[in-house]
């Protein structure tokens, strides 16, 4: 088992006092981001990215990924105690988590949520440990057509698996690609869509887009709801934790199912949010007490939390091995790696072995540290949420502005953040998904380069995407997912009954 020895070396890298300190700081910052409205995993990491430029890459990525774990944990706190999902993926947690806390079982709900998050993450990290090297080795043989096929699959799966209308997913994605094309064309050196404006030369940075879309947009939405935090109080002590832990093994089937759903949705970029909903729905269908879901069933907390955390963690697998992030936050982490001069992809596993395994080892440690921290510090986070919105909101906007500015030390980015904030608000309200936009903005140049290289190889013929079994099957799968909304509608029409609960 080469992986085990690599992992042990990774632990040696990750287990220094300095790195443990960064881990701790990362988790604390992450939970803070997770509980505050308007700051989430993606934009939180984006804002904090510049702060890490002065520390070594391994420590920096450990801290950033810990911020991510912290944010995943933090989302559960607001869902259970305040019925406010701090993160989109914890919406499903509110369904049963909040009723539980209303019944005075907040401690149990939180313990269950944190523990299942941990289980989900652990499952996903184990998957990464053993699967990632294989995927990386396999991907070494990839050429431009294969890369483009994988990227196509990434984007088509948004259309096929997203809950939003297909046309809006496609529109949002294409807007991302269009924005990515602005600026200098890296292949020919031609200027595109700059209209003679010098500050358009650099193009649109996705970090600024992430901060605006998710940060400001979310603040505007929160303002609109006229939100006042009315929460229940939580008491967690060792007795409650122990009592809850003793009941958890009973739900191992739900846990396992949620882990699998989460990992699947994380690797194919369905993302944590649909994973948590899907897992909740499945748990309700298969549970003996399914009809009681929504009234405060512990299983209804376990299912979405496990899946969300498994998806959030496994989203790093394609990011590390193929350079294709499975979620907006993974995309931000990818951006960080690029800034430190580390090119994610199969070669990373060969050239920067100690970095990769240090990161994977830190995923184990980070989640253990995270679980301990959140279990012991819940009351503090609940207290932060009692700070009135009139104070929190402007402070978050200031933090977003600083984050946007520090990306390139550029004032124009702050203005763009505001524009993206308005776009984010409108898109959210009209049910345009934001994740495809961000991912297209990140992967735009890569997708374009691999597409153009493929076209060069084939002299402009699309048949190159069916030139061998591998690329052909990936493209076929991608096209199948792309047409899935049509297929499912067709099936529903044939059966003369609606299959999926459609929103629009």
């Amino acid at each position, binding site marked *: 088992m080469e992986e085990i020895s690599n992992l042990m070396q990774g632990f040696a890298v990750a287990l220094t006092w300095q790195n443990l300190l960064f881990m701790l700081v990362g988790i604390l910052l992450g939970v803070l981001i997770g509980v505050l409205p308007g700051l989430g995993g993606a934009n939180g990491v984006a804002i904090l990215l510049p702060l890490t430029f002065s520390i070594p890459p391994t420590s920096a990525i450990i801290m950033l990924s810990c911020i991510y774990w912290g944010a995943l944990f933090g989302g559960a706190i607001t869902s259970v105690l305040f019925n406010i999902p701090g993160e989109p993926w914890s919406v499903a947690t509110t369904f049963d988590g909040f009723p539980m806390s209303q019944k005075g079982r907040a401690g149990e709900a939180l313990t269950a949520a944190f523990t299942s998050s941990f289980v989900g993450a652990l499952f996903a990290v184990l998957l990464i440990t053993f699967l990632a090297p294989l995927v990386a080795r396999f991907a070494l043989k990839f050429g431009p057509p294969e890369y483009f096929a994988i990227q196509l699959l990434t984007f088509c799966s948004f259309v096929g698996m997203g809950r939003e209308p297909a046309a809006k997913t496609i529109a949002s994605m294409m807007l991302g690609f269009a924005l990515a094309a602005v600026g200098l064309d890296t292949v020919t050196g031609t200027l595109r869509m700059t209209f003679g404006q010098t500050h358009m030369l650099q193009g649109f940075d996705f970090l600024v887009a992430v901060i605006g879309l998710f940060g400001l947009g979310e603040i505007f939405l929160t303002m609109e709801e006229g939100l006042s935090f009315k929460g229940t109080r939580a008491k967690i002590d060792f007795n409650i934790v122990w009592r809850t832990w003793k009941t958890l093994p009973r739900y191992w089937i739900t846990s396992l199912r949620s882990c699998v759903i989460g990992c699947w949705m994380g690797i194919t970029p369905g993302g944590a949010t649909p994973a948590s909903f899907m897992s909740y729905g499945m748990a309700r269908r298969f549970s003996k007490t399914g009809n009681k879901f929504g009234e405060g069933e512990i299983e209804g907390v376990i299912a979405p939390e496990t899946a969300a955390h498994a998806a959030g963690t496994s989203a790093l697998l394609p990011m590390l091995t193929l350079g294709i992030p499975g979620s907006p936050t993974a995309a931000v982490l990818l951006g960080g790696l690029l800034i430190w001069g580390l090119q994610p992809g199969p070669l990373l596993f060969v050239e920067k072995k100690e970095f990769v395994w240090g990161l994977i080892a830190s995923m184990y440690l980070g989640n253990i540290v995270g679980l301990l921290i959140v279990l012991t510090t819940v009351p503090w986070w609940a207290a932060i949420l009692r700070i009135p919105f009139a104070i929190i909101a402007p402070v978050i906007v200031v933090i977003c502005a600083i984050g946007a500015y520090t990306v390139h*030390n550029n004032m124009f980015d702050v203005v763009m953040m505001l524009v993206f904030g308005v776009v984010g608000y409108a898109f959210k309200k009209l049910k345009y998904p934001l994740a495809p936009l961000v991912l297209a903005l990140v992967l735009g140049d890569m997708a374009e380069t691999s597409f153009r290289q493929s076209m060069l190889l084939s002299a*402009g013929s699309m048949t190159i995407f069916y030139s061998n079994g591998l690329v052909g099957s990936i493209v076929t799968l991608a096209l199948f997912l792309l047409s899935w909304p049509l297929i499912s509608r067709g099936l529903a029409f044939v059966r003369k009954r609606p299959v999926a609960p459609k929103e629009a």
Partner: protein
Amino acid sequence: MATNNKAPAGPVTTRWMELVVALALVIIGAIVIVDSHRVGIGWSEDGPRSGYFPNIIGWILTAAAFWIAGETLFKWKALAGKVFVTRDEMKPVLSMFVPTVVYVALVALIGIYVASAVYIATFMMWQGKYKWPPTLGVSIGVPVAVFLLFEVWFLIPLPKGPLEHLLGY
């Protein structure tokens, strides 16, 4: 951005908003296509030209936007009751949006520290009805903390204005 600049005369309906956004996307798509044609969508001796890929993107974007617009028009009657924002919801959003626009302008003019202090103070007193002591505490405390964190510890310069220059930074 048309969303928030509209006068709050009445509730904005979702169907009109759908059309406005779809139209905006069509325009963006058209810009992408036109610009792609400007830089060339065909081949040159060294391969596809710069507009080759964006041209395709532009067309798909335009098509998707037309699809959304068409779907909205198709369901026009059914969408009649749906409201994008009511007048009551618009007010808090604008009360956040307008100060933020002013804030961004101020950052460009007088630096981020003073602008942030003014912005936080305005918002706290206006929206939160706070008295001077807590307002001053937060609105001065946050920029000072930011200053220590960014300029002193992490050595990341942020935009500064006359006050900071006066203090020697």
